[in-house]
């Protein structure tokens, strides 16, 4: 992937670099969530450990991408500098493209020290090729990517065991494999007006 192609994609996908205070108003997923009659905020990415490598999987259209955007918004509204957060969708890209994107992002776009950055790489399971091997190599050798918090998402369970095996010892956290499903019974019933007792989760 050429550097100018990577640059163009990153600038497009990370509007908070230009406008950390206003990007939420224009974001497609966040706008859809705000205008929906349904008030539903799944929290599949709660309790992240700094430096952890997470994989969030689940069916399409259950809110994974929205959950990523909500995480970004919360971080930026907090104390996380917007130039330390990177989001990119790699659907349909090659495993080599993923490596190119990570290297270019780290060297030219992301600010901050290794360990301070947050990487959100969407649709990793739709990459053509051996993505677990590339992530392993980057996690082993790249000074920033190896220390930063990394979240990968995907809509397929393919390569689950391969990723678990290859990335063992490189996750720096527990509960590193997460799944977001459709809304469960209690969530759905509450959204439709039923009064149910509170849950522990």
């Amino acid at each position, binding site marked *: 992937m050429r550097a100018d192609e990577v640059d163009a994609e990153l600038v497009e996908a990370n509007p908070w670099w230009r406008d950390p205070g206003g990007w939420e108003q224009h974001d497609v997923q966040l706008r859809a969530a705000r205008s929906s009659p349904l008030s*539903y905020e799944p929290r599949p990415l709660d309790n992240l450990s700094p430096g952890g490598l997470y994989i969030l999987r689940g069916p*399409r259209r259950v809110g994974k991408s929205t959950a990523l955007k909500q995480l970004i918004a919360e971080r930026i509204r907090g104390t996380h500098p917007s130039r330390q957060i990177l989001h990119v969708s790699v659907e349909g890209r090659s495993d080599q493209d993923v490596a190119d994107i990570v290297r270019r992002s780290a060297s030219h776009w992301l600010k901050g020290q290794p360990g301070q950055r947050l990487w959100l790489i969407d649709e990793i399971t739709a990459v053509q090729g051996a993505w677990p091997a590339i992530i392993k190599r980057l996690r082993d050798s790249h000074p920033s990517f190896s220390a930063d918090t990394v979240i990968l998402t995907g809509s*397929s*369970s393919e390569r689950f065991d391969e990723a678990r095996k290859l990335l063992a010892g490189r996750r720096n956290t527990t509960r590193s494999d997460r799944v977001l499903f*459709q809304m469960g019974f209690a969530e*759905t*019933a509450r959204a439709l007006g039923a009064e149910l007792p509170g849950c522990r989760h």
Partner: protein
Amino acid sequence: LIESWDHYLKVGGYPQAVAAEIDPSDEMDRALVEALWDVVHGEAFAGSGLTHTQTQAILRALTSSLTSLMSVHAMAQAVNLANATVGQRLDALRRSFVAFPVHREQGLAPKPRSQAKWYFTDPGLSRIAFHFGAGAPPDPTALSEQQIGVALLRALEQRSPGAAMRHDRLLYYRSTTRAEIDFVSADFTMTCFESKFVDRGWGRAFQTIEASGRSAGVVATRSGLRRHDGGWALPAGLIAFLLKS
């Protein structure tokens, strides 16, 4: 809980479906069906070379076999495709979290080369073939069993990450006399779950549970709640609620 469970079986858990139920419109309904078709076709059938009609035939066959043992060969004959093609599409549906197999247990592990039961992961997906004019909608009995399976699978995934991807934890039991228990697992120890979506008359389920040698069972009824020697009959909605708690 009983009415809410009935409602849940109609709506399902896709946020778009729940939103359409809160604020209904024809436009929302159309968008929802198209979105679910996109989930199924885009993830599991795109690039397969199958036509929409063939895709719908597979989905219809899967819907009609909910709660039953599924023969890939019989499905392949029904939809006029090769066994391997049907097997590949089922695997694609599994990988994309659209459907999942529940294998037969042997020593609380999947029994090799035995027929699995297949379920969709959401009532909306179970109805998608019907929405496109292929077959009948699944009945609430099948959907209730499916959604108890989904609730158990989600609970197992919390406890054993990967359970919802490997499909080696949630299994069904079949005796030598072909009596079945819908859901067993090494994680449930000697408890098991059987779906009987009725308001009364679930007693035989406890006979099967007792004959299986399990110490206790939970029968997921529609509304019945009663203590038995071999466990509890509980409304399916209550079971799903408690599993999440």
